[in-house]
């Protein structure tokens, strides 16, 4: 089941990338990043059957980093929303030249 797992993981990762590239809602882009992290976790778990327990330990680390990233990222989104009253990336372009 290694090939199937890696294929499923790649497809989910591609869906996440396409979501990041096509959506403009900042919260949905964040959720697409979470989907990409999940796809990578599936790769770790699938390969841990062949390469030992290290893969599953790394999944725990990835989950921790994802939780920290979600907390900080959503705090940033909230503070952007306070200034701009929107989370649409079309209206958040102060760094554009």
């Amino acid at each position, binding site marked *: 089941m290694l090939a199937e797992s890696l294929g499923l993981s790649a497809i989910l990762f591609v869906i996440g990338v396409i979501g990041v590239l096509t959506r403009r809602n900042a919260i949905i882009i964040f959720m697409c990043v979470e989907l990409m992290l999940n796809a990578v976790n599936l790769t770790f778990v699938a390969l841990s059957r062949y390469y030992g327990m290290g893969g599953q330990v790394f999944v725990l680390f990835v989950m921790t980093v994802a939780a920290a990233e979600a907390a900080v990222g*959503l705090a940033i989104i909230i503070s952007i929303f306070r200034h701009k009253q929107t989370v649409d990336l079309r209206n958040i372009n102060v760094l554009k030249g």
Partner: protein
Amino acid sequence: MDNYGLFYQFHFYLFGIIAIVAAVTFVTRRSPVAAAMWLVVTMFCLAAEYVMLDAQFIAAMQVLLYAGAIMVIFLFVIMLLNLGEASDVTDIRGVWGKLLAGFVGLVLLAEVGILTRTGIPSGQYVVGRDYLGQQLAKYGAVGAVARPLYRDYSLAFELTSVLLLVAIAGAVILGRKESSSAR
């Protein structure tokens, strides 16, 4: 190659297909709440796949941490900012964004196709056949993950606690109101 029963294979493919369908639905929903719910479906299917791949503890953590904690934060922020209803204009990018996304998707999928054609060495075990099964029988589902976590990766584990502390401090400072920062 390993021999898996028809029952196992059927459920593996079933949860995989549900995960893909839910992920596509998630990316195309306009309402953030509906998108979050479909993402939760994807995460539950991935938890089922983890159970089938001999990672029961990771599956439990997936349900508790991802589907539970992280998605609750997302839904909480959507509720806090009052974004639950879909906006009138679609937020999906125009033709160029879709073309770029389609191109990237095709390239990545072609890469997957090439990789599967060259053949993944699925019969080669580095740690010996049914290593995970032996570990699970010996130490239990939690102990099998906890032993390497606290032995080989203990430094990384400690550094993770620093990361969490920094993240908590950052979230508190970023989320503070402007007026209170003048003190």
